[in-house]
């Protein structure tokens, strides 16, 4: 049970971190937009991906902090723990609250852990069952989508090959897309596109850029993580941000690298979207792949039509305003630092410090007073 408890703790921490990090990201994006970096999409995408990696590796920050404490690199009694800080403020009288209620609020995570890992009432059982069913359901959806993608690629025709990158032609898809397996990377192009050489050039340049940005790998990772954090709305907002930024960054890079005319590029996007609407795919399930355009309307996630409009507007507006897309290392370091501090601050504090003992005594006294007044 100790192991399950530790895993659950890490799970809760990552969920909290997702919320904190996404809020931080929104602030950073607001600042970037106001500081003349509105169209630096590649920088924004790299920053967002970097924040996500920092969350995944957050247990290492805690490990490092604990090791630093053990080897005396951090002064004794120094704490970054948020609950310790709030408790100290409470005992100093910075805010007023019933001690019993405050103690319950501090133990909320313990209560949640007990109710979900050792459910006794029907509600606990139901929540635990829903969590497991949700995870399994979303994971199964990922597996089915993976098989569907494999079928689509399997039904396509080999065109040419560069190392591990396979270019294939398909009669069943009307939108070019990139995907990958463990060893092979695929770009699938609608066979009808062979007769439109300008569109073919644009589609290939776009999909190559997706591979350069490692968008396919991110898409697969996010789809898998979605099945674990399915109940956390932040994961959907996060994915939406990444989907928007990767397309905007990709369009911008393709135009910069390949000297393609903006009008021809926009025309190509519109043509592919029109073809897709004229021949809608039979499988409506979201495939773990990265397409040239998304034309479907989604309730959750990126609305394809709105994103297409945003892409075309952005291409027209940002033309001549291409900004430096060099990674802003100081901004990256700042974000990682803030996430590291947040990770350490939200750790569950299981030690009985002086302050915690005092709070427990006050809460017990309050309970006794209630009992006495009742008699």
């Amino acid at each position, binding site marked *: 049970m100790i192991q399950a408890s530790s895993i659950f703790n890490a799970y809760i921490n990552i969920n909290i971190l997702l919320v904190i990090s996404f809020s931080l990201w929104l602030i950073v994006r607001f600042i970037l937009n106001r500081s003349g970096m509105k169209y630096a999409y590649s920088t924004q995408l790299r920053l967002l991906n970097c924040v996500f990696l920092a969350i995944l590796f957050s247990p290492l920050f805690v490990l490092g902090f604990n090791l630093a404490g053990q080897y005396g690199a951090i002064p004794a009694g120094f704490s970054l723990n948020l609950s310790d800080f709030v408790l100290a403020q409470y005992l100093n009288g910075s805010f007023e609250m019933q001690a019993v209620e405050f103690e319950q609020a501090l133990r909320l995570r313990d209560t949640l852990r007990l109710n979900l890992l050792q459910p006794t009432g029907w509600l606990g059982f139901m929540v635990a069952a829903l969590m497991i069913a949700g995870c399994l359901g979303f994971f199964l959806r990922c597996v089915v989508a993976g098989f569907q993608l494999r079928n689509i690629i399997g039904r396509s*025709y080999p065109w040419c090959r560069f190392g591990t990158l396979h270019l294939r032609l398909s009669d069943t898809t009307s939108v070019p897309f990139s995907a990958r397996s463990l060893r092979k990377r695929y770009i699938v192009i609608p*066979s009808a596109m062979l*007769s439109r050489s300008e569109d073919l050039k644009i589609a290939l340049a776009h999909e190559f850029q997706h591979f350069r940005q490692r968008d396919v790998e991110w898409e697969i990772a996010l789809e898998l993580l979605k099945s674990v954090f399915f109940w956390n709305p932040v994961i959907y907002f996060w994915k939406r941000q990444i989907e928007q930024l990767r397309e905007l960054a990709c369009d911008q890079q393709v135009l910069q690298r390949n000297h393609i005319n903006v009008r021809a590029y926009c025309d190509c996007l519109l043509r592919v979207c029109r073809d897709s609407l004229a021949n809608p795919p039979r499988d409506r399930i979201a495939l773990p792949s990265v397409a040239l355009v998304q034309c479907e309307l989604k309730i959750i996630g990126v609305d394809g039509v709105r994103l297409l409009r945003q892409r075309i507007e952005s291409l027209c507006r940002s033309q001549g305003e291409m900004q430096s897309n060099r990674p802003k290392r100081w901004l990256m370091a700042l974000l990682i630092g803030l996430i590291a501090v947040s990770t350490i601050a939200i750790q569950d504090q299981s030690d009985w410090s002086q302050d915690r003992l005092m709070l427990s005594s006050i809460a017990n006294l309050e309970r006794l007073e209630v009992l006495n007044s009742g008699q």
Partner: protein
Amino acid sequence: MKDKKAEFLTEVELEFMSLLWQLGQGSVRDVLAKMAPARNLAYTSAATILRILEQKGFVASTKQGKTFIYKPLLEKDAYQSRSLKKLSENLFDNTPSILVARLVDDSDMTEYALEEIRALIEKRLKNDTS
């Protein structure tokens, strides 16, 4: 190369097959030469389309020197019948008479064309009774 048999052609493939039916057989360059100059199709794209047609089993290729010569394996009439059958199944509730009725109702149909259809039907009925 693993063959993937398909029953129907895509728009571009149909364009290529029509040219091959006209030519009887031909290389990639022959097919490209038959196309309208405004089509501006790359040699590699044309070669890829013919290769896919071969994988689908619509054409067969033989090597003559360094050039591949493609020959249709399916007659135009056979593909027309196949396409009409599918059209009849999908759009005309598998009732060919509705298909013919729609065709005859077409105001663009000339008297001569209608006469031709009548002659074809009469010929077929005569053959069936004899």
